[in-house]
């Protein structure tokens, strides 16, 4: 069964803290993605990775970085958390095998930055 897990469901951090969000998938997928979801804005792509050690900026990468040291794990890092990074963060993965694939999402991490 397809599974994408995220390390925390809820996080509360203070402004200026470094925040790590972890995502693990067990489907041997090549592609992994980080989105944030905000009311009225839908899902916006922060970063994505098509392979180990590889990363690409999405639509809103400012204030974020990522790490992909292993195929199954994709980490999102907030270098210095700010209140405007309060959001729902969603990780997803997909495979290059089969052209008409979909992205599989984790349950999300709701981050509150005070």
């Amino acid at each position, binding site marked *: 069964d397809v599974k994408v897990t995220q390390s925390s469901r809820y996080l509360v951090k203070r402004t200026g803290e470094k925040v790590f969000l972890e995502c693990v998938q067990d489907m041997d997928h090549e592609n992994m993605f980080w989105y944030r979801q905000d009311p009225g804005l*839908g899902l916006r792509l922060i970063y994505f990775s098509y392979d180990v050690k590889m990363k690409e900026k999405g639509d809103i990468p400012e204030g974020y970085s990522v790490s992909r040291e292993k195929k199954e794990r994709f980490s999102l890092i907030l270098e210095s958390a700010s209140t405007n990074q309060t959001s729902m963060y969603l990780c997803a993965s997909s495979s290059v095998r089969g052209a008409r*694939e979909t*992205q*599989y999402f*984790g349950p999300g991490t709701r981050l509150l930055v005070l």
Partner: protein
Amino acid sequence: DQQVKQNSPSLSVQEGRISILNCDYTNSMFDYFLWYKKYPAEGPTFLISISSIKDKNEDGRFTVFLNKSAKHLSLHIVPSQPGDSAVYFCAASPTGSARQLTFGSGTQLTVLP
């Protein structure tokens, strides 16, 4: 500028009736479209997709229609059930795959018993 737009933030429908959710896009390079459903405190789950070579795709109670000339797609749910109450996102890709998705802002569907 939003390339994928869902202009209705919310929709209420009576149980048993048809739900129609709409989505418009501006990028003519999009050739693969998907619908996702999202319940509160859960990640989005894939519902149905359609390639630009088709104008209709059906899966049980769910049908997606694509009008390329109008750059418009719609999701029909017949009959609607209370368990269908969720936020529905449409997404589009220019790569023919799920590698590069642009999402709409979502429509909250409420199915009234």
